[in-house]
């Protein structure tokens, strides 16, 4: 039978979710079961630093139920991800191990950028609707328990993405701590949020006009979907009317009219205030809350990987666009980046047999090429280190922490001395596999930047062929490439060391 059953588990800050998906044939993704159970891990993590034993026990109990259910559906594969509550707890590894011992489930930890990327993929699982909306100027507001993520889209591509510590549970905890009266709550949420949002506006939004706001959260979206359906585009006025429902009346009344449990009302309230403020700040006219969740993204990612789904949206493009925007912010040269990107990928592609790396590593290389000189914004002297620091401090949506580290290191070693595996210091230590990737990609990037030493893009139309133990790079032009040739030989040393392949530069002058 060609159908595949996949289970996605989200160990969130506020809720545990299991979704079962069925893939019956190409591009047929269907949710067949979905269960949620409330479990507030977030409060433990954010304010005590650790998840209590009682919560772990409850977590394991529920995960065991999940695993029973998965067994019943005979799932072919599953992915279980923990988000910020598990990620930020002090004893993450111990928690992971306890879960594995008690339930047999392997919980992987998502970094914020990976999580947001999956959230964002969950939107893409909505296909057409999503593609249509992001053709206009669109912002995605992804509200989590600990933080929110704001991403801007223009013309089908991601422009910027930024994380702000304005998560619903976090704000709620402050409100509890300050013993806020419910009548004050709204203005306090607004004050806390606006302080950060104004900075955001200054730095990222500037005068950009946003038409659509896509909202993703586990709180207000559910209510919107319940009331208007998951495909409804709400005009801001409609949304305001909806908001009014939560504002007026008691918690019990709100719970009744929204059809949710009372304990969830304050969280929905905070989320709703955030949505309203941000829509206002951006001047958005339409709000879309499709109610998709991380689990949808997890399934989408699995389906992409297993080639069960042919997505319309090119996510790699988003990651690259995101890197390009970082480079732009630090005055990187687009032309140089483009040249480097093209040279590195040419070399990479011709060397497939030798380096044995795949599509994902190719993406790292592209990102490293784009970000190769961002550090010069801080210091022209120490580009390697400063670039490394910038990349490590900037989120690149869709990359895990380890992946970001790989990219940062490739950029770093392009400029500074390569640090071998055994020489690594604790701070920037890489595991063996990552280390090898870094070495290989560094070798390629070094060679490539040697080829564009003059920054004059003399080597356009470069061709690469692998012959015996030689990588023959041919350029067809009439430029003087003495400088390039010189650096090429110098930089080729490391390449030779890593691949045992000698790079040779040939110029074929065409008259």
């Amino acid at each position, binding site marked *: *039978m060609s*159908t595949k*059953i996949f289970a996605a588990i989200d160990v969130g800050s506020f*809720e545990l979710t299991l979704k079962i998906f*069925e893939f*019956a*044939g190409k591009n*047929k993704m*269907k949710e*067949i*079961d*979905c*269960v*949620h*159970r*409330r479990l507030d891990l977030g409060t433990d993590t954010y304010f005590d630093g650790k998840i209590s034993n009682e919560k772990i026990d409850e977590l394991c109990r529920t995960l065991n*139920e999940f695993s*029973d*259910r998965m*067994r*019943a*559906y*005979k799932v072919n594969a599953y992915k279980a991800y923990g988000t910020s509550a598990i990620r930020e707890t002090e004893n993450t590894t111990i928690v992971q191990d306890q879960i594995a011992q008690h339930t047999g489930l392997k919980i992987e930890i998502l970094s914020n950028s990976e999580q947001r990327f999956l959230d964002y993929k969950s939107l893409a699982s909505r296909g057409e609707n999503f593609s249509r909306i992001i053709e206009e100027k669109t912002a995605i507001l992804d509200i989590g328990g600990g933080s929110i993520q704001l991403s801007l889209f223009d013309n089908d591509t991601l422009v910027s993405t930024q994380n702000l510590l304005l998560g619903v549970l976090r704000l709620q905890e402050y409100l509890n701590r300050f013993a806020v009266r419910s009548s004050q709550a709204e203005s306090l949420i607004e004050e806390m949020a606006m302080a950060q949002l104004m900075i955001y506006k200054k730095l990222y939004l500037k005068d950009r006009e946003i038409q659509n706001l896509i909202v993703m959260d586990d709180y207000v979206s*559910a209510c919107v*979907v*319940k009331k208007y*359906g*998951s495909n409804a585009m709400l005009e801001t006025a409609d949304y305001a009317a909806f908001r009014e429902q939560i504002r007026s009346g008691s918690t019990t009344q709100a719970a009744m009219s929204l*059809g949710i*449990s009372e304990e969830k009302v304050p969280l929905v309230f905070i989320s709703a205030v955030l949505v309203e403020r941000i829509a206002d700040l951006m001047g958005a006219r339409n709000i879309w809350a499709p*109610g998709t969740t991380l689990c949808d993204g997890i399934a989408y990612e699995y389906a992409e990987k297993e080639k069960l789904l042919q997505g319309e949206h090119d996510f790699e493009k988003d990651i690259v666009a995101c890197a390009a925007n970082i480079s732009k912010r630090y005055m990187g040269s687009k032309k140089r980046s483009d040249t480097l990107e093209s040279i590195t990928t040419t070399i990479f592609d011709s060397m497939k047999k030798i380096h044995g790396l795949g599509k994902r590593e190719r993406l790292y290389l592209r990102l490293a090429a784009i970000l190769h000189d961002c550090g010069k914004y801080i210091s022209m002297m120490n580009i390697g280190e400063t670039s490394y620091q910038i990349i490590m401090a900037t989120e690149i949506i869709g990359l895990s922490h380890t992946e970001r580290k790989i990219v940062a290191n490739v950029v770093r070693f392009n400029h500074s001395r390569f640090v071998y595996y055994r020489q690594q210091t604790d701070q920037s230590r890489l595991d063996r596999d990552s280390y090898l990737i870094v070495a290989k990609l560094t070798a390629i990037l070094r060679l490539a930047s040697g080829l564009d030493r003059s920054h004059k893009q003399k080597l356009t139309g470069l061709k690469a062929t692998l012959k015996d133990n030689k990588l023959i790079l041919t350029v067809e032009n009439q430029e003087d490439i003495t400088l390039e040739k010189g650096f090429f030989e110098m930089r080729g040393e490391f390449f030779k060391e890593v691949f045992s392949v000698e790079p040779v530069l040939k110029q074929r002058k065409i008259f």
Partner: protein
Amino acid sequence: MAETDFKNPKYYANRELSWILFDRRVLNEARDKSIPLFERLKFLSITASNLDEFFMIRVASLQDMVNAKYDKPDIAGLTPSEQLKQLDAAIHQLVELQYSTYNRSILPQLRQNGLQVIRQHEELTESEAAFADKYFEENVYPVLTPMAVDSSRPFPLIRNKTLNIAALVRKKDEKKEMEFVTVQVPGVLSRIVPLPSEGKSKKIILLEEIIERNIHKLFLNYDIVSAHPYRIMRNADLTIEEDEAADLLKEIEKQLKKRQWGEAIRLEVEAGMDKRLLKILREELHMEESNIYKIDGPLDLTVLMQIYGLEGFERLKSSGHTPQPVPELPAGCNIFDEVRKGDVLLHHPYQTFEPVVDFIRQAARDPEVLAIKQTLYRVSGNSPIIAALALAAENGKQVTVLVELKARFDEEHNIVWAKMLEKAGCHVIYGLVGLKTHCKITLAVRREEDGIRRYVHLGTGNYNDATAKLYTDIGLLTCSEAIGEDATAVFNMLSGYSEPLVWNKLSLAPLWLKDKFLYLIDRERQYALEGRPARIIAKVNSLCDRDVIAALYRASTAGVRIDLIVRGICCLKTGIKGVSENITVRSIVGDFLEHGRIFYFQNNDRAEIYCGSADWMPRNLERRVEILFPVDTPRLKEKLLHILESQLRDNVKASVLQADGSYEKVDRRGKAMFHAQENFCREATEEARNSDSASSTVTRVFIPETHR
């Protein structure tokens, strides 16, 4: 003009008094000479067991309220003590009618038909008396436990609902005071004892008469001054009735000390009981005069059910109806294949319940079925469904069963087989906190060629193969994706997970169901106001929810034609000017217990029909998990509408609620007789026969079985 206050108590009838009217309608069946004699016995027995239950639950509950000084008026504006007062009169009247029916009509006719019931042991002939005495010594004496009351022995605990004989005795040859003794008529022995008879006619005597006759053998050194049977009913319900308001619960908690658990609330004694004996009983049991029933005839008429079981009187019973095969689901078919061809509607007991049992059985065996989930409220003893579920679990399927332990009177029974299911590896959920799970739903998840498919059975009646032969119910078998998704969500919620974002088709109580009904009723009202076709037909067991009734009144004043088929309690009043002129209420009491709930809304000629497990009672809509499901297939909608229309046409078993609150049989002058239940039997038989002959032409070809 100001809008009428549709919630004014004067527009409502008290539910307890309405219930008495229902029992009265059942009694009418016992009085109906056109019904076979033994069937009448059965109806009379039912009125008695109904009344017992009513006492234990409803009267006890009212008594609690009075004791707790809770005096909030009911829907009709009566306080609990006012209700008790009115009930008192009504019940006494009902009991009188029960016994006059028994004595004046049934007994003589039994005799005419060859069955003589000896009323008093004094009527026995000598040889019969000798037989009775021998029977006593051999069979009865060993199991009797006589108890005496004196200064060292307090008044014994007389068990609820048991039949006892009280006697006054005096020590032989002494002129001392009389003593009180009591002995329970043993429940382990049959209460009817056939006497040896010659010729065709049979004679029976009741066990208590034999004991009474021989009671001196229990107290050898005493003279028996007088001996009479009696029976008590206790407030034995340890839980607060779910029907009552939450504020009552608080009240009672406060007054807990004052509440006397298990206090006697009814005393039945033989008419003509020795006054001294009665006085002792009254004082010891703290009975008020109004709660004493002096009965001219055998106490506890449920004994008539045993008489009904006597052999040799088949000619005096109705021939009965054999539940017919369902044409869409012939015996031996693969239910999954058939349901995939289209939804199947089942109408029990006219059609057999077997396909429902088969559905679960096949699911248990089918290798492609991954999971079976079911709610169980009341099941029969030795239920084939339980066996199938256990088998499924043993076959490695995920089986989830919600067992409602709070099902009244069935608690102990339910625990036993719930444990059994657990042992077999089923995941058993023992009900939900604060809610009774009353919905009837089964889900089988099956892995098929093109993916997961969910098969769902939704019903209006319990998964009980025994009662399915007596209760009229509707069932729907479907594999509609929308309903399947909802069914999964229902079970997820029952397993303690959060509610899904959206429901496709099903409406659930206590979440949305009441609102849904109010919405549907109001929609008809809107159409009526716009001058469009607007009509409601609803068939329920009870109607006593104030909001629903008010909505119906409002719709009626807007011109919606409303026809209600309410078997039991109905707090709605018909024929009130400016309130309910467009509403009719009829009740059908027949051989089968009307049980299905069907709701028809004309909806501007885009009719919608729903079936469900919920009555229009506050407890169903607010304190139970219930499901209302739409039937969408045009063919099945027609079938349901036909069922409703047939019942509206009935002029044999239907009684119509009058403006004065009484029920009258339909006036059928000038009309042909139409008996809906009989008609359904006929239709089901014909349908089965037609499909049988259709398929038999096809099966003239032998089909070799190939290996599977």
